[in-house]
């Protein structure tokens, strides 16, 4: 029993989080300060929400390369739209902004699904191409210039300043747990429930495990595919809108090049690259682990020019430990 828990991926991620936590805490006690931990949680919000969508696509057996552009497209268009609405005197509540962004995301996701199930293009290629198409459409028809704090919808700025509980810092401002952390937890929880307890969610696992078997038992591949990509798009739209609000500026190029950091977190969290396996808890821990490392290298004194190098090494280390543990687990089950 204990052996089985120890060999669980989630247990491993958690131990690594503790291990790095202790090492970093010794290197610089500030790491363990409440403020730093609250900051870390806030930094995890964007990758954690994006990771939910990436996980769903990975479980279905594909690697999504378009989620960041879907997120940016949805969030940028939404904030641009409502900044114009606001300039004309109407203040829009934050919930509406989120819903519109999620709707646009789901719409773009359905285009991915069309490419994958109708034209049988591999997910990686389809999403890589669609990412470019979304980017092009956005630059051509929506815009490419920054949306500054003063132009941004008021409710987004208010959201970015909202803390759940707060206390005065040494500098005199209020610090506390940022409200977006709750949104991330909600996104993780809902993804977990949908993937675990609904027929649609289970069909994604079946599709990723073995597509032809899944079809034979009666799952509609087209429907499942549509669900996978609309869900991923919807989540990306949510992540994008929250991320843009949190930094109070919409820069269309801002998410560029972060595909692999998020995907790495999802894979480190135990999601199988070839599909059929993955859990939300694992993904949450994977995001926490990768961000704990990447957000604290300066704090613990790794010189900036080595940051990427050290981050890469640690990711490889984490992945190797996982592979070893996976082998041990297989050996254990064979022994049973």
């Amino acid at each position: 029993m204990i052996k089985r828990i120890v060999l669980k991926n989630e247990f491993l991620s958690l131990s690594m989080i503790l291990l790095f936590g202790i090492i970093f805490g010794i290197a610089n006690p500030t790491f363990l300060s409440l403020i730093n931990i609250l900051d870390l949680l806030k930094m995890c919000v964007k990758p954690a929400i994006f990771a939910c969508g990436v996980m769903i696509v990975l479980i279905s057996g594909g690697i999504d390369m378009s989620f960041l552009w879907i997120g940016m497209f949805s969030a940028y268009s939404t904030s641009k739209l409502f900044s114009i609405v606001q300039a004309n005197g109407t203040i829009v509540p934050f919930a509406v902004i989120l819903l519109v962004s999620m709707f646009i995301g789901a719409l773009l996701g359905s285009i991915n699904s069309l490419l994958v199930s109708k034209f049988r293009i591999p997910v990686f290629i389809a999403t890589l191409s669609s990412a470019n198409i979304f980017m092009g459409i956005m630059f051509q028809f929506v815009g490419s210039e920054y949306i500054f704090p003063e132009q941004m919808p008021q409710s987004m700025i208010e959201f970015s300043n909202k803390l759940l509980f707060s206390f005065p810092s040494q500098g005199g401002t209020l610090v506390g747990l940022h409200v977006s952390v709750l949104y991330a937890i909600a996104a993780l929880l809902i993804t977990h429930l949908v993937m675990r307890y609904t027929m649609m969610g289970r069909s994604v696992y079946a599709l990723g495990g073995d597509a032809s078997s899944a079809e034979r038992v009666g799952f509609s591949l087209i429907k499942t595919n549509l669900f996978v990509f609309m869900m991923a798009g919807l989540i990306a739209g949510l992540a994008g809108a929250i991320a843009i609000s949190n930094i109070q500026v919409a820069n269309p190029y801002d998410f560029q090049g972060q595909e692999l950091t998020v995907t790495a977190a999802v894979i480190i969290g135990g999601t199988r690259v070839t599909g059929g396996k993955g859990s939300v808890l694992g993904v949450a821990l994977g995001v926490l682990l990768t961000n704990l490392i990447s957000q604290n290298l300066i704090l613990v004194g790794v010189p900036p020019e080595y940051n990427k190098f050290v981050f890469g090494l640690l990711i490889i280390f984490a992945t190797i430990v996982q592979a070893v543990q996976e082998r041990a687990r297989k050996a254990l089950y064979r022994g049973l």
Partner: protein
Amino acid sequence: MKRLVVILIAGVILLGMSSGFAENDPFIQDMVIAHLPKTVGGAWFTRMYQGFGQYSGMSGSETFQIGPSTGDAAAHNANVQDLVAQGVDAICVVPYAPEQIDAELGKARAEGTIVISNEGTKLQNIDYDLEAFDNTKFGQGAAELLGEGMGGKGSIIVFVGSLGSTAHMSWANSIVDTIQAKYPDIQVANKDGVFIETGNNAANSYEKAKEALKAYPEATGIFCPSATDTPSIARAIQEAGLTNQITYVAVGLPNAVRTYVKSGDLDVVVCWDPADVGLAMCKLAAAAKSGYEVKTGDDLGVFGFNNVIVEGKVVMGSEWRVLTAAEIDDFNY
């Protein structure tokens, strides 16, 4: 009646003189000028192209913009070929990869096309390269703003957009040199003196700034050379409650940083207007066309370029804008 005639005649003569003057002005020529930026669409180059529009209004020239939508050296070369085939008088290029476009620009010049570059000091096949200012002097200026703001003591954190950026690195290095020479009581907080990379990315720089402020809580000064990253660092300062403790000097576009300049998180913005650079490029193209050789001390009639320094083919401006809360509202770009 008589008086009216006199006035009319005088007016006509004056008008003739002024238009005659314009034709003799080596910096104003009627020509077809193409703007070829690194990428089209971004805020920076869109603003730069507005300088071309201003020039068009002054000279009657036809100006247009062409370029790839993402950084692409091969596409850039193809653009040059197209422009030569169209027979434009001048190409004003901001090269994406100087070493890759140089040969193509050589062919353009062989066809008689005038080539003006910006951020292209490495290029061989050009008539002139225009630079906004000398990087070392710019760094010195920023260091003095920091030193004075901090009252000559404390420690600074220096960021760069990318450790590979020539301009950012030379400003940052010049800041450190000036601080060490002029303000012995100011230390550089960065570990081993290595600048912290913010990645030209608002989200990333926000995270790096928050981290750096925790790693170096004693810091009282910050410099950021990346216009993209300046606002989010200001936000990190604000959230940490360090608005009053930290003197923050940074490169930025006025519209992007206005909120933070007014709230005092960003104390001083150093900047230059890309439209001025665009206009000055057109004027250099005109000089090349009229056969006038630009020399040190010349006035291009554009802010920042009223007293240029010429070294070989490189024409350098000598001034930049220093904006605080008092002036920020006078600028809109």
